Every structure is written in structure tokens, then in C-alpha cells.
């Protein structure tokens, strides 16, 4: 039996449409202007990666891998993965995607860590933030692609914003969790020695939450990478665009090669962030 019609679904829809349209009319221009620095940043990172000789990019990534893990095997692995991306002909698109990842990750850090810290400090803020995070993580990404596109138009910035919205929740959650998990007695000691809130946060809580924050960064990167294909639908260039083209034209080879390059990037990000997280873990065993 059909459910009785209580609200008129059509007018409800139209109401929402009207609201979003009004938002676009009122704010789209200023939002676009506000997002200009973001675009400049993304473009310059992209330019840098694409214009640099490939061997310098690989060397730079190898150095990052070394400082992250202090393990030669990982340095070799990273080098091989990057060579693989180049060999299968995905270097240039790979660099575009890498640029998007790097900028998205930086923005996630800038937004995610302070929000996570605030959540850990204020029970009230946490109560408000948790359901929002739940919505961000469960809402199908296509749903919020529409308003984002309407507000920002097609292009790199909306793709970047969609990626951030999708990828930032785990970082926020794990920052909050990491700070909450800091040993109560250690915090008590800091208080007893007369540490201010700021001294406690910067000197004790954040350093001790770092392994968890690194786990959050790892999760966030993985989720950002999984957004690559979706983001390409609204104008992100790079590997995702190639996969999308493969689907549209039923060219399995095109889609598969780009897909493999995405996997290579994913493995690379995952191993480097995980190894760094592990290296931070060691002092935690003490004191128990």
C-alpha cells in the first residue's frame, strides 16, 4: 500500500532547488573569488610537478620516503612504483593527480587537525561535529557534487573541494581520538607542573596523539585517491579523467592503465604514511 502523501515531494524539491539557486545567485561570485588562492596554489603545484624533469620528481619522492621511514626497501619501492607509472605512459596525468592529492592533503591538514583539536577540547562542539562528520562520510559523493558545481562551476577547485569534504572526516576523528587517548596521568602531571592549556596542547597532547593523527592522514589520503575518478567528472584532470574516458568510450586498456597508475600512487602514499606513523609509535610503549 502506498504511503499517504503528507508533504508534497515536488514542492519540497522545488524549495531546496530554490534555496540553492538563491545561494548561487547571492554567493557564487564571491565564493569563486575566495577560492582563487586555492586555484593558484593547485595550479602552481601542478606546474611544478609537470615541468620538473621526471627523475627529479622521483628523487624528491625517494627522499621523502627515506625521511618518513628510514628504510631502504621503501625508497626502492617508491622509485619502482614511480618508474612503473612513467613506463605505462601515465606520467603526465599521474603528476596532475599527484598535485591534486598533495593540495587536497594539505588542505585536509589545515582544516582537519584544528577541528579535531577543538572536538577533543569541547564536549559541546564534539556533539555538534560528530553527526556532521557522519553525514559527510555516508552521503554519496554525487549528491554534494551538484551544489558544489553550482557554486564553484566546473573545474579544478570544485573537484578539490569535493575531495576535501569526502576525505577529511577520518583525519578529524583520529585527531580527536588521539588527543583523548593521551594518558590521563601524563596530562595530570603537566597540569601539576603549571602548564597552560596551550603548553599542554602543543607540548604533550599533540606530540602524543601524533601516531593516531598519522593514521588519520593515511586514511585521508586513501579516501582522497578514491575520489579521483568522481572528481574528474566535474573537471579534475589527470588519471581519473582517463579512467572516465575509458568507461565512456568502452576502452578497457585506457581505463586499466590509468587505474593501475592510481593503484601505484595509492600504494606509495599508504606505505610512506604508515611507515612514518609506525616510527612515531615507539615511545608510546613506555610508562605502562
Amino acid at each position, binding site marked *: 500500500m502506498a504511503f499517504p502523501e503528507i508533504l508534497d515531494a515536488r514542492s519540497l524539491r522545488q524549495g531546496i532547488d530554490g534555496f540553492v539557486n538563491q545561494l548561487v545567485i547571492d554567493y557564487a561570485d564571491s565564493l569563486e573569488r575566495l577560492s582563487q588562492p586555492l586555484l593558484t596554489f593547485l595550479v602552481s603545484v601542478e606546474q611544478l610537478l609537470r615541468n620538473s624533469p621526471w627523475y627529479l620528481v622521483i628523487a624528491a619522492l625517494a627522499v621523502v620516503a627515506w625521511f618518513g621511514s628510514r628504510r631502504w626497501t621503501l625508497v626502492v619501492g617508491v622509485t619502482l612504483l614511480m618508474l612503473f607509472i612513467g613506463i605505462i605512459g601515465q606520467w603526465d596525468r599521474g603528476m596532475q593527480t599527484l598535485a591534486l592529492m598533495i593540495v587536497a592533503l594539505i588542505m585536509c591538514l589545515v582544516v582537519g587537525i584544528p577541528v579535531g583539536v577543538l572536538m577533543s577540547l569541547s564536549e559541546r562542539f564534539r556533539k555538534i561535529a560528530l553527526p556532521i562528520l557522519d553525514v559527510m562520510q555516508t552521503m554519496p559523493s554525487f549528491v554534494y557534487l551538484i551544489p558544489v558545481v553550482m557554486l564553484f562551476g566546473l573545474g579544478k577547485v570544485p573537484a578539490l573541494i569535493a575531495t576535501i569534504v569526502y576525505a577529511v572526516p577520518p583525519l578529524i576523528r583520529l585527531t580527536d581520538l588521539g588527543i583523548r587517548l593521551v594518558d590521563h596521568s601524563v596530562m595530570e602531571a603537566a597540569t601539576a*607542573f603549571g602548564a597552560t592549556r596551550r603548553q599542554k596542547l602543543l*607540548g604533550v597532547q599533540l606530540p602524543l596523539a601524533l601516531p593516531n593523527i598519522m593514521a588519520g592522514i593515511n586514511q585521508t589520503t586513501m579516501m582522497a585517491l578514491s575520489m579521483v575518478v568522481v572528481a574528474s567528472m566535474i573537471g579534475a584532470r589527470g588519471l581519473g579523467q582517463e579512467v572516465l574516458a575509458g568507461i565512456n568510450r568502452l576502452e578497457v586498456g585506457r581505463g586499466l592503465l590509468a587505474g593501475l597508475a592510481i593503484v601505484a600512487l595509492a600504494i606509495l602514499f599508504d606505505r610512506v604514511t604508515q611507515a612514518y606513523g609506525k616510527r612515531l609509535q615507539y615511545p608510546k610503549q613506555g610508562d605502562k
Partner: protein
Amino acid sequence: MAKIDISGIYKIFGPNPKRHLQAVKKGLSKDDLLADSGHTLGLQDVNLSIEEGELFVIMGLSGSGKSTLIRHINRLIDPTSGSIRIDGENVLNLRQDELIQLRRHKMSMVFQRFALFPHKTVLDNVAYGLTIQGIDKKNARVIANDWLEQVGLQGFGDQHPHELSGGMQQRVGLARALATNPDILLMDEAFSALDPLIRKEMQDLLMKLQQQLHKTIVFITHDLDEALRLGNRIAILKDGALVQQGDPQDILLSPQNDYVADFVKDVNRGKVLKAHHVLAKPVSTLNTDTTVTKAKDWMMRHGFDYATVLEGNYLKGIVTLSNLHAATQETLRESVSPVSSVLESADLESLMPRMIRDTAPIAVTTDTGEFVGWVSRSKVIRLISPAQAVDREASLTEPVE
């Protein structure tokens, strides 16, 4: 003026402590409060005054509120009512920034589970209180290094806490607390997590440091032996209320109720009680200048077999009647036979072997050698095993009493 003066402290845990304060003040018990309102009574009417330079022990079983009480002193916990004065100033009136200054400069704390910062090196842990004060890292490390040496950990500065054993970690905890040179040291079950041998070592270290530093120390423990060993004064806490306070011997010799009596039942009294607790003072003493005839008359008149001979305030020895009968000189000086003596601070346990080995009397003297009396065997027996009736026989071997 007392260094720390705690008066009328009540602490009720729960969502609305103030509402139940009146009922508690009128005598509502801990169990009834919990049943009526779900609030927990942490402390009730605690009054303590702790003097400068003393090592004050607060002891009680788990749940007695001792850890809650010590956290009131540096306001890690705020009371529901009452006042806490440090050097006469009520710390409950302090603003947040004044409270932080108080914690930075006047007091520091040592924790049961050490609570070291796992991400900092041992040296930086010790320097923590100083860097928090804003002292630059280099100078702070120099001072911290000194303190590491004081607690016997020179050379461990670059390690991380988890690389050290429990005992060593607590040495770091102690050094960290001392590094800011506070007046007051709060020690919350500081040695309870350590095994007995290491605990003893740490107690010795604390006593050694205290002899040089003369801090005001508030020491929490659930271990009566530790309390009796360390404390100048002891307060016993039960269900958040003080049941007795006094010096260690007071607690041991005159427990004020069954709870305390039960507590002290199994204590090794031989370790706690000192020679001055078993003193027998001679009715009268002779002097080396006394003439032999005078001494003989006096002893026979009182029926003494022997008597104590002093030179000034110092013990010379004893004379026996038979010695005097054989004496040729005019004064006692040459007839005196030496006796063994102990300091009044010697514990009874160290006296026992001597008392068993021979029946000769043992004299008790002050640190400077002045005579205070004799060891009374019957008192020793009475104090060490109070349950046993005193054997009449034991008193026969006693010197003048």
C-alpha cells in the same frame, strides 16, 4: 604558621555536589549518600596542618580518599567546601594564572604510575617544569642534569623513559619534581608501584635528599610500614575522614580505634620503635667523684646491687656492690666497669641480638653521648609482643628501676 593548612574540606563527587553538602555536614553517611542521590562522598571534614620541613604521611586503604586529598593541595581537584591555605594564603581564591604560578614555583608532584612524558628524553622530562616556566632549554638542561646526578641517574639523560626500569623511572619522576626547587613536594603513592627492594632504595634516597633539602613533603601511601618509616607525622584516612594523626609511635602505641589498631597489628614493631621507647630511668645516679664509702652506704640502704655512674652528663659505667667492697681508692672512678650503650634512635630490632647474647645492662645515650637511661627488658617485651603477659622473671635481671 603552618606551611599547609587544610580546614573543613568536604568533597562530594557527582552532578550536583552543593545540594547534598548540608546533609553530609549533618552526618549523612557515605553509603546513604550514594544510595539516596548517587553522589560519592570523597572527603568529609578533613582538617590538617602540615608544618614547614616535615615529611607528613597520609595513609589509608584504596578508596579512603587519600589521592583525592593530596590533589586538593595543588587544586587538581577543587573541594566542595572548606579552605586550603599555603603559607597563609587561601589557594581557592587564586585566579587561574596565579594558580599556574603556584604550581610552577611552589609545589611539584610525584605520581604513582610515574606519569613521565613518553615522547621526551629523560633529561627533558626532568627539565619540564623549568621549560614550562619559560627558562631557556639550555639552562634548564644544565639544572636538570644536576638533579639527574642527585638521584643517581647520570648518563641516562638521552634515553627515553620506556628504556628505564620502574625504579629508575621514578627516580626521573623525583628529579623532575625537585628540579623546580619547590617548597612543597606532593608524592602520590610514589613508591607503591615498585617492588620491595627498589621501594626501600627509593625511601632511602628520599630520606637522604630530605636531610639536605628540608622540603615540606606530603606523602601518600597505603603501606603502613612505609608510613612509619618515612613519616615525621602520620594521618590515617578512612572513608574520606581522618581517624587519627600523630607521630609514628603514637599511632603504633596508642591506636585510637579498632580501625587503626587493626592496621598496626601486623607492623614490625621492632623496626618502628626506638630505644627511647623502652627507657628505664634510674632513680638516682652516682658521680665519679662520689666516695666509695658514701656510695656503699647509699646502695645498701636502698638495696641496690649496682648503680649508674656518670661523669657530668656522660655515662661512665656501673659499679657493683661487690666491686666497691674490694675497692681501695677513695672515689668511685677506678671501680667503674664499662657498659655497652646504644643511641636512643636505635630501633629495637637492632637491640635484640645484644639483649639475647648477654644479660649485661645496655645504656641509652643521645647522639652527643649524654646518658638518658637504661634499656628496660620488660618494656621491650611488652612493646614488641603486647599480647603476651609480662613475665615477672624478666624484671629481675633489670638494672635499677
